[in-house]
Structures are given as C-alpha cells and as structure tokens.
C-alpha cells in the first residue's frame, strides 16, 4: 500500500485539516460531540498523498475519535495510531489510559492490551496501563465478614460538603454496617479534589461506620461520565450514565458486596436527575437504590450550588446554616482564593 508509515500531528485548528478529519470520522459514523473543544484534544493521523486515512486523538488520559478509512481494512493502521497515542501519553508520564468505543471495536482494543471494564448496548469502556480496577479495589478498606454485612455506598462530588450531604450520610449510616463514600476524583470543580475530600472526611469523622475513599477514575469521571461536568446535555447523558451505572454495579458493588446505594433527591440539576433515573433502572435487584429527600433548613432546600453562588456574591453568612462548621470555616478562611477562581472562569452552575 502506498501510505507512509508516518504518523503526523494533525492541527485541527487549520480548517483544511479539520475538514479532512471530519470527513474521515463521518465515513466511519463517529459523531464529534459539539461540546468538545478542539483546543482540548491532541490529534494524530496517517496520510496517503494528501488524504487522511487513519486518525486518533486523546483528551487527558482518554482516547477519542479513533478511525481508520474502511477502504484500507488494515489492522496495521489501527495499531500504528493506538501505539502513537500511547507513546505520546507515556512521554507525558500518563500510562493509565481509557477508551470509550463502539462494541465492534472491543476486540481490536483488547488485541493491543486493553481490558474491558464494562459493556452496554451502545458502547464499551476499556482501560490499559500500569494500573487497573483490580489495583484500585485492593486499596479499598474492608471489614470482617463483609459479604454478610449490610454495605452501602454514596458517590458524591461534594462541591463543597454541606449539611445536606451530611444528612444523606447519616441516613445511610443508621441502617448500614458500613458506608463507603466515594468522592469524585475529577478535578474540575470550584473546590479542588483534595479540598472536597478533606471536607467530607472532617464532616463525617464522628461516624464510625463510614469510610471515605476516592472514586478514582471509575465513578463519575471523564472516563465513565464526561458530561456530568457540563450542564444539560440530556441525550448524551443517557448512555454515559448507563456506562457509569453498569460499571458501578458489576465492578465496584459486586466485589465490595455493596447492597444499597443512597442518592440525594434531585430537584435542581437535570444531569443528576437523569443520572438518578438511570441508577434506579440499572442497579436493582442486586443493588438497591434509596433516594433520600433533600434536607430543608428554614424551608430552604440545601444545595451546594447555592453555596457556590453565595461565595461568588460574597454573602457567605446567608448559607452558614447549610454547612457544617468545618466547611463554613474553610470557606471563610479561603474566600478570596475561591472567589478569584470563579472570576477566572470556573463554572459554578454545573455540578
């Protein structure tokens, strides 16, 4: 075949290359989601003469938009693209890599060392690299005879930890032997991951049957559920929530013997509402879903979004009743930093 074995960086800001890239993706029926900014992805490709015949991209540690021109029917091109992406990421010291792809490509990725995490009707999520979900599970604390105990789980972003979160944890704690709080790891919220984690830990430290652990890349992350962090994209949210929920059920709840997942009722965020609906549909009967109504204080529903708004508007006194002292004091002591972060464009309306 006449193509060069050269994989080149493809500059998608150049309309000439962008057009070629879009045409190739269209040929293999991959839609470019509109909310993905081209600035955020690194793209490579193989050219024959001036025609783009294979391409692949990554955004952080997620591979995306992998396509080989079907007329070439060539596994070599696929391997070449994946190999280049993996090596490029390795140079940035990124080794743990995910890909979300169509079921027909599952084998091709497994052939180059990827392992399937979860499969739904619309897609497959695979991972590869120096660590895997089994390593993650090995780090989760357990109790004696866990299999026969009542184990519950809550996944939360806690941006930041409020008395509403606290109430949810208390409810779970009352009726469980052990409660895992999986704190979302993706660092894209107003409160940094370390801050969120710390405030949850301090906020529940008196509850002896609660363990606070990181959700790592396996719960509500860019890999399992990227649009969680972007408000209102209901269509895409549906299949992503299915992926996240199925992964939780099969790969997290089962080995940890989690029998109940607690959710906060969701009157505000459309994204979370769809997520809750999906969890209710997918988790039972193996994992029960308990939805706890939101805690109200002085007839006001507690919400972390309101807390973030109050930070922005410099009115944190108004939300003092929503927060445990630990969170309130933290906000008071770091108010300027948080406000600057909002001014610099940190989105506070999403999750």
């Amino acid at each position, binding site marked *: 075949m006449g193509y060069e074995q050269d994989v080149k960086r493809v500059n998608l800001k150049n309309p000439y290359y962008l057009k070629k890239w879009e045409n190739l993706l269209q040929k293999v029926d991959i839609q470019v989601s509109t909310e993905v900014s081209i600035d955020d992805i690194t793209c490579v490709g193989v050219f024959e003469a001036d025609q783009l015949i294979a391409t692949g991209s990554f955004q952080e540690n997620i591979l995306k938009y992998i396509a080989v021109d079907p007329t070439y029917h060539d596994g*070599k091109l696929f*391997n*070449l693209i*994946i*190999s280049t992406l*993996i*090596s490029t990421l*390795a140079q940035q*010291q990124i*080794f743990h890599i995910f890909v979300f792809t169509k079921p027909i490509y599952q084998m091709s990725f497994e*052939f*180059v*060392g990827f392992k399937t995490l979860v499969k739904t009707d619309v897609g497959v999520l695979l991972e*590869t*690299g*120096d*660590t895997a979900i089994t390593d993650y599970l090995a780090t989760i604390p357990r109790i004696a005879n866990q299999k026969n105990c009542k184990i519950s789980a809550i996944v939360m972003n806690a941006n930041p930890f409020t008395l509403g979160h606290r109430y949810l944890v208390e409810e779970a704690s009352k009726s469980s032997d052990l409660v895992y709080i999986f704190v979302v790891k993706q660092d894209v919220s107003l409160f940094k991951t370390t801050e969120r984690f710390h405030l949850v830990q301090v906020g529940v430290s008196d509850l002896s049957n609660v363990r606070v652990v990181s959700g790592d890349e396996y719960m509500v992350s860019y890999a399992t559920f990227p649009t969680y962090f972007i408000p209102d994209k209901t269509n895409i949210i549906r299949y992503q929530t299915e992926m996240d929920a199925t992964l939780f059920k099969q790969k997290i709840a089962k080995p940890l013997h989690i029998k109940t997942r607690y959710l906060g009722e969701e009157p505000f965020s459309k994204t979370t509402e769809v997520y809750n609906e999906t969890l209710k549909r997918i988790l039972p009967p193996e994992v029960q879903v308990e939805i706890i109504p939101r805690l109200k204080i002085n007839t006001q529903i507690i919400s972390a979004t309101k807390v973030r708004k109050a930070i922005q508007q410099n009115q944190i006194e108004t939300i003092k009743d929503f927060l445990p002292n630990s969170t309130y004091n933290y906000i008071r002591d770091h108010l300027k930093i948080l406000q600057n972060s909002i001014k610099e464009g940190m989105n506070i309306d999403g999750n």
Partner: protein
Amino acid sequence: MEIKSTAMAGTLESSDIQITISSNKSGIQIDLNSDVAKIFGKQIKKVIIESLNALEIKNAKVKAVDQGALDCVIRARTLAAAQRATHTAEEPEWEVF
C-alpha cells in the same frame, strides 16, 4: 534496582512488543497479551524475567503487549523500559545484552 516510576518502551506494530514497567510490592508480576501466548507465552515471560534479573530488579509489574516479537526484541524493549523506570537510562548497561 528499584523501580522509581512507570516507564514504557516499544510499539504495537508487527514484530514488536510494548513493555510497561511499574513498581510492585513483592516479586515480578507479568501481564502478557499475545496472539501466540499459548505457544510462546512461557518463553516470552522467561526472556522478560531474565532481562530484569540481569539488572537486579526484584520487584516489578510488567505489562507486555506482544505483536510477535523475537527474543532479542523482547530483551531490548524490556531493558529499555527497565532502565527508564529505574532512572538509569543515561548509563546503558550494554553488557547485559
């Protein structure tokens, strides 16, 4: 020698092997992915272990994605990844080849 950070060598192209080496608490643990694992799996693992032994690496996790590499290629890729992972790539251990 100690593994200081994860490192990789090799590609996914035909006749090559991609080796990723990371730290491990105890012993050498190999996750091999190969079309010919049934026939050559033992031999591939043996070459990887010998190469690590030559550098006196006792604890390591190895992910090997093989595309039909010959022993000399396996050895070269393992040594390259291992020297990167032990931060000794600046002083290649030529004699262990």
